[in-house]
């Protein structure tokens, strides 16, 4: 039998379909000139399987059909902002003037690239109401690292390195405590209230002479706006600390308010969330960081400056503009390809359109909330921002768990929402529809979830089986971790 199921083809590994004698690229023949590699030269077999061009297309097209995608359906992953990825962005990023330029070509030959970086910097500073920006971080997590390194550097310059404690709410993304710990800060967790917000009293009590700062996601991962944020920033500053804001959820407020008005000192912006650059199955990301006046001198290298009508790249750490800089986060100047995509998106929306983005994102989430509140269990009372958090209470008295519910959604044609995060809610289900879903699409999603909830009560076994309509069913993750097989290896025939 073929092992295929209709459109779902069983596709073997590259190393099983390909062959080391095969190639899909025609290249001229080398001239076999005597090599100049010295003793490092080698001609041993590497073992790379090759495919002709048609086989290559078939291999990857077949693989692609085993993936869910935002283009195919709603992707309700909370805190991930899986919105539409405009194809104009892709086209713009592929303009040869952007894609075919080298990071170290003479400054006079890349004025357009520097202008683009300056333009996106200007937009992001204006949208966030912040004083300075660095474009170099390669992803949100590196943005966090960048922001916290600037804070660390500022403390060093103030000769206050004894300030070692960073407060992180229990609802934070895992990257927040990981980042602070990586930099040698002591991470102290602060509690959330019954209402899903930072417990201001607990925050206050945790401030002492070792307080370096606090990392807050706003809107937070419960989908709520931290209404004490201004109080928190005032107390933070009064106590000699800094307020880092995780900007993962900026989509809820872009164009509606300026984070700078909340008193934050640094915030990263995930261009792949709010500004529509594609997630690409897990990157590449881009995480520019905006800074307040208090931190603007502590940016990493490089900086783009306009001097006498010409753009310049200030990249050497001995330049006086960088004298307080904490250093360099990565080689070259950041994710240019992502800057172009995000810029294309921002220009398309304009400031009026971006405000509409936030309003529609929040409207869509609240529409889901209202429509589902009698069926699933909202974790908190009141309106949400761009995402809505449910607890697993609606699954009480059944043997269905959040994971089973999520897997059953797959059989209904949906990617599951974010599950078991944030940690503060039991069996959490975090749903973010984004602004790029139509009402019709939301209505279908609502009806599907209602149908599943109705089924939970009387047909719970089917949830344990789910998914059944996928190319592969539930996988044994314990086996994967216990006996790791992390690459293909040629099977050695057993000795007779």
């Amino acid at each position, binding site marked *: 039998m073929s092992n295929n199921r209709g459109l779902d083809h069983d596709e073997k590994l590259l190393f099983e379909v390909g062959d080391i004698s095969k190639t899909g690229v025609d290249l*001229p023949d080398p001239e076999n000139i005597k090599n100049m590699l010295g003793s490092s030269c080698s001609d041993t077999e590497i073992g790379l399987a090759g495919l002709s061009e048609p086989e290559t297309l078939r291999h990857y097209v077949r693989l692609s059909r085993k993936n869910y995608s935002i283009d195919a359906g709603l992707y309700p992953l909370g805190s991930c902002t899986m919105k539409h990825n405009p194809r104009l962005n892709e086209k713009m990023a592929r303009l040869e003037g952007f894609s075919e330029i080298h990071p170290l070509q003479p400054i006079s030959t890349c004025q357009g690239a520097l202008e683009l970086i300056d333009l996106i910097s200007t937009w992001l500073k204006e949208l966030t109401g912040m004083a300075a920006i660095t474009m170099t971080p390669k992803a949100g997590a590196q943005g966090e690292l960048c922001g916290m390194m600037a804070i660390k550097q500022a403390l060093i310059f103030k000769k206050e390195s004894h300030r070692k404690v960073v407060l992180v709410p229990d609802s934070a993304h895992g990257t927040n405590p990981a980042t602070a710990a990586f930099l040698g800060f002591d991470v102290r967790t602060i509690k959330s209230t019954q209402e899903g917000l930072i417990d201001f009293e607990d925050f206050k009590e945790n401030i002492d002479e070792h307080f370096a700062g606090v990392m807050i996601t706003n809107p937070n991962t419960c989908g709520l706006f931290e209404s004490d944020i*201004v109080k928190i920033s005032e107390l933070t500053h009064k106590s000699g600390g800094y307020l880092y804001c995780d900007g993962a959820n900026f989509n809820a407020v872009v164009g509606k308010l300026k984070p700078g008005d909340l008193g934050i000192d640094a915030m990263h912006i995930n261009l792949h969330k709010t500004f529509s650059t594609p997630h690409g199955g897990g990157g590449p990301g881009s995480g520019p960081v905006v800074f307040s006046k208090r931190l603007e001198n502590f940016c990493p290298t490089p900086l783009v400056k306009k001097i006498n009508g010409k753009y310049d790249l200030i990249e050497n750490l001995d330049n006086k503009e960088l004298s307080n800089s904490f250093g360099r986060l990565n080689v070259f100047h950041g994710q240019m390809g992502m800057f172009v995509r995000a810029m294309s998106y921002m220009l398309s929306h304009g400031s009026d359109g971006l405000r509409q983005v936030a309003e529609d994102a929040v409207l869509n989430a609240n529409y889901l909330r209202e429509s589902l509140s009698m069926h699933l269990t909202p974790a908190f009372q009141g309106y949400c921002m761009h995402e809505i958090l449910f607890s697993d209470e609606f699954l009480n008295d059944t043997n269905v768990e959040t994971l089973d519910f999520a897997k059953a959604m797959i059989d209904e044609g949906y990617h599951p929402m974010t599950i078991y995060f944030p940690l503060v809610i039991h069996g959490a289900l975090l749903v973010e529809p984004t602004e790029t879903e139509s009402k019709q699409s939301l209505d279908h999603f609502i009806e599907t979830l209602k149908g599943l909830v109705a089924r939970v009560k009387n047909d719970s076994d089917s949830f344990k089986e789910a998914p059944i309509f996928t190319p592969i069913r539930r996988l044994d993750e314990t086996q994967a971790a216990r006996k790791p097989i992390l*690459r293909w290896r040629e099977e050695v025939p057993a000795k007779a």
Partner: protein
Amino acid sequence: MRYLPLTNEDRKNMKEVIGITDVNQLFASVPNNVPLDPSFNLPDHKTEMEVGRILSQIAGKNINSNQVPFFLGAGAYKHHIPATVDHIIQRSEFLTSYTPYQPEISQGTLQYLFEFQTQVSLLTGMDVSNASMYDGSTASAEAVSMAKRITKRNKVILSPTLHPQYAEVIKTLISSSEDSVEYKFSECFEVDSLISKIDDDVSCVVVQNPDFFGECYSLENLSKYCQSKGALLIVVVNEVVSLGMMKSPGSMGADIVACEGQSLGNSLNFGGPYIGLMSTKDKFVRQLPGRIVGETNDVDGEKGFVLTLATREQHIRREKATSNICTNSGLCSLAFTIHLSLLGEKGFKKLSKLNHEAAIKLYSRLECLDGFEVINKTFFNEFTIKLPIDAETFVEKMASKGVLAGVPVSRLLNKKDNFLNLLVVASSEINLDSDRDEFIRLAKEVCYE
């Protein structure tokens, strides 16, 4: 607005369902002293045509590598990318999917990452690889950080010919008060001279191969000595195409390998997005940062793939994670793996040879040119020239005459003095004889006329 599907009628109906009359009621939790709907000094929305015009105009102000003879390297290399690569990575199912946390509907991504990990392990000659990092520089820094965790030692030795910006990244990302990082940039370097620096406190030695100046090394002696002292050898490869002709780092005894993988499948993009490759020995796999894909079975016994060993990662371990890294370089790793699948062993080795020969051809021409001295004894597709004039002036003058000639070493340095005349020049399969003619003709003109 073309990206927003809600109509005003929809909005009205939805507000009714929610029980509000004004959308700002949903923003009521924003403190009163924070202005809602502030004004922005930014233009309003634009049509696709207008955006295309604005960005094309900006792009047009750059000289791109397809327009002129092009010889830049130093960590980013121009190669021909087969048309198939860009076509496949733009398929919706790859471009617009999320990290494969739901394996049942992400086998496409998971399988290509498993294949990618295999290719990277084979290329570097190592046991295992992760599913990619941001770029070569951060992969190098993560490798150092990994070596520190494994050896529980804090002294780090960077070879004097490591890419200066890589050294800056490593220093920035891993230095804390208890660390010491030795790095003294120099073009005069014998790899075995590092041996005398290795003592019992050294966690790792980082060597770039081919190095920043293009010189190639055998590392067997160094790796043996590292091993005898309990230090790890980290090999950094900036130009992965070199691995088609050179001994793999693994075969020379590397413990961790960090590469920039941009050369395969990924355009220059003014420096990003690129793709970091990272591989190591089986015994260190639980200290490897980043995402890793593993093989397993589903409930029916079918073979499938999942993200695995997640107990190392930040979303599980929080402040105890091996790294704060969350993302990999998904789509860039797809481009890498497609390009390498198209090449196969045969194409890859041929490509490697063509690159080496392109460099030899330029080298032979330069040897006959008075006042130009190639400082390398060996090289792959890149070498360093001592010019009769200052290299930054040279490249600007060459650019104004229509050749992008190379990377001045001094551009990457804070203290430039001893390196003013050094130029790093790369060649690849894209260079024609006419490009080299133009380089030589203009180089003479720029320096002597």
